[in-house]
């Protein structure tokens, strides 16, 4: 198997995660060079392999599953069978990290809780993430992105001023996975120095609330509920998202200083605005936002979003289109930074994936392989990693241990 060259080269992760919150974490660990072995069973394959995500209904041909599980190896194992549980214990004995995001107690019920695995591998780092953490009145509740988003407070502060709250979806799961990644890395660093393992109890909703900590401080200080503001800012103006020439294309534009305001007036060809005391400083502009929004909107709707961005940025004004996935896939800046990488997939052929978002100069992160086929790496794991003979594998297969 291709040896990772990243910071976690030589680290082996036993991955019980499903959907996106958990897999996001092991995706990053894999990108950092760890060898991630994703454990699945045929009865309960990862949800991303099925449903709307799969192209042809085949469990191994979901591009979305591939994106979220790059670099990972596939171990198909029936955990209802004691032999399956036994194999996991032998695997954990030669691994460093276990990550899971089932509902509370599932791992214990199948005999693979931390207290058990700790006996097998005393320096193990085990990370458990569920909706609200392993303690507290809501510990039993199922975790989904829309639950984390709503209960964390993020949904209530996103959306139009005069509209309902907003559901952020996949990105919320990925934020939970990213938070978990940081915790695992911190534990691994500590283990490197002290040899001490950890059990990490991660709460998804709390992780999202951390990303609106400033809004919560307003309540702590002033008992004031942060309202939805659309694209507006409490202090800066103009500050919004303006329609451009093509249908459903938009330009986000924000002015923070008087110099930027004067630069904007220059680009708009409106020296009169630059001299008008009604707009001469931030506080004055804020009071005139409605008028400013119409003036700017009138200018942007005659221009292509990308061309407007260039013109404004060259003058020193912060303006970026609201990029769609299409815009990003074709974006010259991202192409120049080599963000897109082609990965061959046995069933999907050439897939386009994003390279890791952090560029480490000495020990780079990498995408080395497509996502796993269901059970695609059983031989490698059982024979090379666990040293099982062909006969033993045959015998276990007969007992549906690998169903």
């Amino acid at each position, binding site marked *: 198997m291709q040896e990772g060259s990243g910071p976690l080269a030589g680290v082996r992760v036993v991955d019980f995660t499903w959907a996106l919150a958990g897999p996001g974490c092991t995706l990053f660990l894999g990108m950092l060079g760890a060898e991630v072995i994703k454990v699945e069973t045929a009865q309960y394959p990862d949800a991303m392999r099925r449903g709307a995500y799969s192209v042809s209904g085949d469990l191994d041909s979901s591009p979305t599953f591939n994106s979220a599980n790059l670099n990972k190896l596939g171990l198909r194992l029936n955990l209802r069978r004691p032999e399956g549980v036994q194999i996991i214990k032998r695997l954990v004995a030669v691994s460093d990290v276990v990550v899971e995001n089932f509902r509370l107690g599932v791992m214990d019920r199948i005999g693979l809780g931390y207290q058990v695995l700790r006996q097998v591998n005393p320096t193990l780092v085990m990370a458990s993430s569920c909706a609200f953490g392993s303690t507290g009145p809501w510990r039993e509740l199922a975790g989904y992105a829309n639950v984390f988003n709503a209960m964390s407070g993020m949904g209530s502060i996103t959306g139009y001023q005069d509209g309902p709250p907003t559901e952020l979806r996949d990105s919320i799961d990925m934020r939970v996975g990213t938070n978990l990644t940081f915790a695992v890395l911190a534990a691994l660093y500590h283990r490197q120095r002290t040899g001490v393992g950890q059990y990490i109890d991660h709460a998804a909703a709390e992780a999202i609330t951390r990303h609106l900590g400033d809004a919560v401080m307003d309540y702590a200080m002033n008992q004031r509920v942060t309202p939805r503001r659309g694209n507006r800012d409490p202090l800066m103006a103009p500050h919004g998202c303006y329609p451009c020439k093509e249908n459903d294309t938009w330009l986000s534009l924000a002015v923070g200083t008087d110099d930027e305001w004067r630069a904007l007036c220059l680009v708009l060809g409106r020296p009169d605005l630059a001299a008008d*005391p009604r707009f001469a400083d931030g*506080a*004055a502009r804020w009071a005139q936002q409605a008028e400013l929004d119409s003036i700017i909107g009138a200018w942007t709707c005659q221009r292509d979003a990308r061309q407007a961005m260039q013109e404004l940025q060259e003058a020193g004004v912060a303006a970026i289109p609201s990029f769609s996935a299409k815009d990003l896939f074709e974006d010259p800046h991202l192409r120049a930074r080599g963000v897109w990488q082609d990965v061959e997939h046995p069933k999907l052929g050439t897939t386009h994936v994003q390279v890791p978002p952090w560029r480490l100069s000495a020990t780079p992160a990498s995408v080395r392989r497509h996502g796993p086929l269901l059970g695609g790496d059983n031989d490698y794991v059982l024979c090379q990693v666990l040293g099982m003979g062909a006969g033993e594998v045959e015998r276990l297969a007969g007992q549906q241990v690998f169903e």
Partner: protein
Amino acid sequence: MSRMALEGVKVIEWGEYVSAPFCARTLADMGADVLKVEHPRGDRSRRHGPFPGDVPHREQSGLYLALNANKRGITLNPSKATGRAILLRLLESADVLVEDQGASFVDGLGLDYVSLKERFPRLIVASLTPYGRTGPYRDYKGHDLSANAAGGISFGNGTPQREPLVVPAAQVSFMAGLGAALATVMALVAREATGRGQLVDVAEAQVVGVLLTGYHLPTYIYKGIPGYRAGNRFRLGLYPNCVLPCKDGYVCINCPQMEQYQRFLALLGNPEWTNNPRYRDRRAMTEQYPDEAEGLIIPWFMEHTKEEIFALCREHRIPCVPVQTIQEVVHDEHLASRSYFQELGHPDAGRLTYPGPPYRFSATPWGLRLPAPTLGQHNREVLCDLLGYIPDDLPRLRAAGVI
């Protein structure tokens, strides 16, 4: 408590460092309601020190605390449109504006007297600049050092052939501030009769140059002597009129009258050299061979301490006193008997000793009432309670650099 002399007089101080703040402080000490307008970055004297324990702290600079007691303070940047509008609203209820922002800068903002006159006919504007608002040096840059130079003061201070010295501790700026306060009160008295405000153009160099070199002007006009340095001797005096070292420091002797000089010689035991005619002409001794003359009496001084010399000279009514250090001044018995020094608490700097009253009024007492304002301390009181801004505006005004 009886009324203070300038009670009800509203002063806006738009000043930094020494001269303008000392002018406003002088008016505040006599009861004027002074509001100090500071640029959001704070008065530069906040950075000057001295600081308790030499640990710099924006609210604990000794120079700032001394210059700005008895004032309320807000932050405001009149070069921003909204800042200028707020200043104009504050001027509506003001009797006096004290400013030292520089002629061209103030004119550029339309905040000079000529621009304000129509709207505020009763407003008195005390404008302090290094060289004055008229004349070729109008827009020349200047500091305390420059006012000492143009004022003709430095030329006379220090040792012949060595570089001329400033009067220490920014005293020229302090005196200019005092002069501006005097001129401002004159304008207030005039306004009681005329009903009109006016411009008070105070040039720091002119205040000291006029009041301190008036005595030297005739020496130049009639003797053609443009001035010279005389080290430790007071140039126009008769011997002995100088500062001499003694056992534990320095003393200052000045015996213009013959009887005083004879009593001094008697104290020295009428030494042999008094018979020498060369040492009979006191003016020649000062102007032609001062070092030789001083050499005659230095030995006596070196045998005595400051204390001994002072006691002997008081007893024999000889004008000779110790050169008191600041420490001796702060602990001086005479000043203590008049309870000259006063203490005042400050939220950050704690309880400190401040210089006391320069004059004592029998009916309208001088008072050390308020500690210097912390940066923007009265922003809410002035902007919200007085001018009607809602609290929600304040963060915007702050972010826009207006307050």
